[in-house]
Structure formats: structure tokens, C-alpha cells
């Protein structure tokens, strides 16, 4: 546990979806670090650390990556790596026609981390004119899977069907 954490192999929990969630995680780690540093000063190293109550996201993160936050060195490294990850993690922008439920976002981020990048994050947008589906924007590409675009691209099919009816 004393080894420096390798951020490239970290697994992010499904509850950690957006860059905001990651920033919140960083702040929480910093808060934990402050708390533990305060305990260290107060007890002058005589007592063991008592971890403060952590959020489910941080608990899942530390558990998933086997990170012991009571380890000062590891905690510091983790904090730094998380800060770096917050700025460098690849983000996939997803725009939906309706408000996306957390379960849906968790499923999608799980797919991204499994198939595209293990530290991938989501940025969620709302555009009702899409009607349905999703509008995906990766760092260099755009994939329009919206129902509006599907209807537009397959308009000839509709025309043929209507002509057949007529």
C-alpha cells in the first residue's frame, strides 16, 4: 500500500460520472486529508487515524482501487493523482432529449469505461429537439444517434412507404 498509486489503472466507480463528480471527489479527498492531518497534529502521532464519514462515491473509489487513505503518503499521492485526473480524464459529451436518470448514466459510463477508456467521464446535456436517442461528442468526433437525425436520414424510406400506400 505504500507504493505510489498508478492513476492509469484506477477504476472509477459507476457513481462517479462527470467531471463535477470527480472534482467533488478531489475536494472530499482533500477534506479527508485535512481532517487526518489535524488528527495527526492533535494526537502528535500517538493515536491511530479515525477516518471521517465519507461519501458513497469516495468509499466506492477507495474500495474499488484498494486505497488506504490513512496512509499519509498514499493519500497525498492519491490527492495529486486525482487532481491530475480531473484535468486529463477524457470526457464524452452526451446530449439527450430528456433528463437522464442516474441509472442510465451509470450504465453508459460503465460501457465507456469498459470499452473506450477506464477513466472516461461523461458530460450530460439536454436538447429536447433531439426527440430521442443521444447526441455523442467525443474529443474529436460527433456521433448523432438522435431520433431526429434518424428520421431525417431515413426520410426516403418513409416516402417510399407512403407511395406504396398511395
Amino acid at each position, binding site marked *: 500500500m505504500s507504493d505510489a498509486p498508478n492513476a492509469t489503472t484506477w477504476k472509477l466507480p459507476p457513481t462517479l460520472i462527470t467531471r463535477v463528480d470527480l472534482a467533488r471527489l478531489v475536494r472530499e479527498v482533500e477534506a479527508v486529508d485535512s481532517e487526518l492531518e489535524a488528527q495527526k497534529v492533535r494526537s502528535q502521532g500517538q493515536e491511530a487515524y479515525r477516518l471521517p464519514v465519507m461519501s458513497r462515491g469516495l468509499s466506492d473509489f477507495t474500495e474499488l482501487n484498494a486505497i488506504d487513505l490513512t496512509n499519509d503518503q498514499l493519500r497525498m499521492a492519491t490527492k495529486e493523482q486525482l487532481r491530475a485526473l480531473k484535468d486529463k480524464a*477524457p470526457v*464524452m459529451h452526451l446530449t*439527450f*432529449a*430528456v*433528463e*437522464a*436518470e442516474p*441509472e*442510465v448514466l451509470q*450504465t*453508459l459510463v460503465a*460501457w*465507456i469505461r469498459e*470499452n*473506450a*477508456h477506464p477513466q*472516461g467521464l461523461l458530460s450530460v446535456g439536454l436538447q*429536447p*429537439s433531439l*426527440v*430521442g*436517442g*443521444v447526441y*455523442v461528442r*467525443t*474529443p*474529436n*468526433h460527433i*456521433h448523432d*444517434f438522435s*431520433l*431526429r437525425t434518424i*428520421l*431525417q436520414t431515413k*426520410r*426516403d424510406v*418513409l*416516402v417510399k412507404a*407512403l*407511395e406504396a400506400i398511395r
Partner: protein
Amino acid sequence: MMTLILVTAIGVAIVIGVVLLVVALRHRPGTDKKKANTADQAYNDAAIEEVSHLFNEEFREELRNRGRLRFEKIINENAMFLKQDLDMTIAQVNEQLKTEIGGKLEKEVDNYGKAMKDAQQLALDALQRSVTAVETQRAELAEVFKKDLEAREAALLKAFEDNLAKIVEYYLLQALSDQLDLRAQLPMIIKQLEQNKQAIMEDMRL
């Protein structure tokens, strides 16, 4: 007046006759010219005397009255004949006039009838031509309208067909925009992500 003239004329005629008789007697041929002249002179004198005796005022008045009556009778008879002739002539003229006028009228009426018939025929022909022309124009107009209608119908149909997909699409967008559940769409989204997995993966790892 007429009677006076008549009586005067008769008197003059009688005088002329007597004079002529005397002249004829005086120029009668004889052996002894001198003797003859004497005798003639005597006859003449006797004749003149007798004439003056014969044609005295009473006789002349009588003659005048007789002549007047005779002349009046003749005048009346002639007037009657003239009246009869005139009546007859008038009747004939009336009849002839009637016949003539009737014939002419009949002829004019016939001509008028014929002219009317011709005019009627001309009017009928003109009307027939007008009807034919109107019918032709109506047919042409109907044809033009029909073609225009077909063209408009085709244009509308084409516009409708061209826009029908947009209409249906708009309808679907409006009808389904609030109805589609994102959770139900998730398998489709995952499937589309899987289809573009390679591109997404390469892009995310850059």
C-alpha cells in the same frame, strides 16, 4: 249661263244657214247675167225681209227656250250617263285598284315573307355559327381548364409528397418528444455505441 251660250250658238248657226242659202241662190247659173242679178237682188231682199219676219223676237225667244230645254235635257242625260260611266269607272277602278293593290300587296307580302324567311335563316345560321363557336371555345376552355387542373393537381401532389415526409417527421417529433423514455432507449443507444465502438475508443484514448 250655259243655256245662254247654247241659245246664242243656235241662233248664230241659223243666221249662218240663211246667209249661205242666199249666197247659193245668188250664184245660181243663168243665161242673162243682168237679169239674173236683178232677180237675185230681189230674192235677197225678200229673203232678208222674210228672215227678219221669220226670226222675230218671240220666235227667237221660243227657239232659245227650246234650245235651253233641249240643252238642259241633253246636259242632264249626259250628266246621268257621265255619272253612270263615272260610277262604273269608279267601280272598275276600285275593283282594278283592289286587284292591283291586292296583287301587289300579296306580292309584297310574299317578298316580305321571303325576306323574313331569308333573314330568319340568316339569323339561324348566324346563331348556329355562334353556338358552334361557343361550343368550340367551351370545349377548348374545358380542355385548358382540365390540363391546368391536372397540372395543379400534379404540382400539389408532388409538393404534398415532397413535404409529406417532413409532415410525418414533424408530427412524430411533436408527438413523441415528451413520450420517449430514455431507459427504454438505452439498449438502442448501447447498440449504436457498440457499432461505433472503434472510433469512440480511438478518439477517447488520444
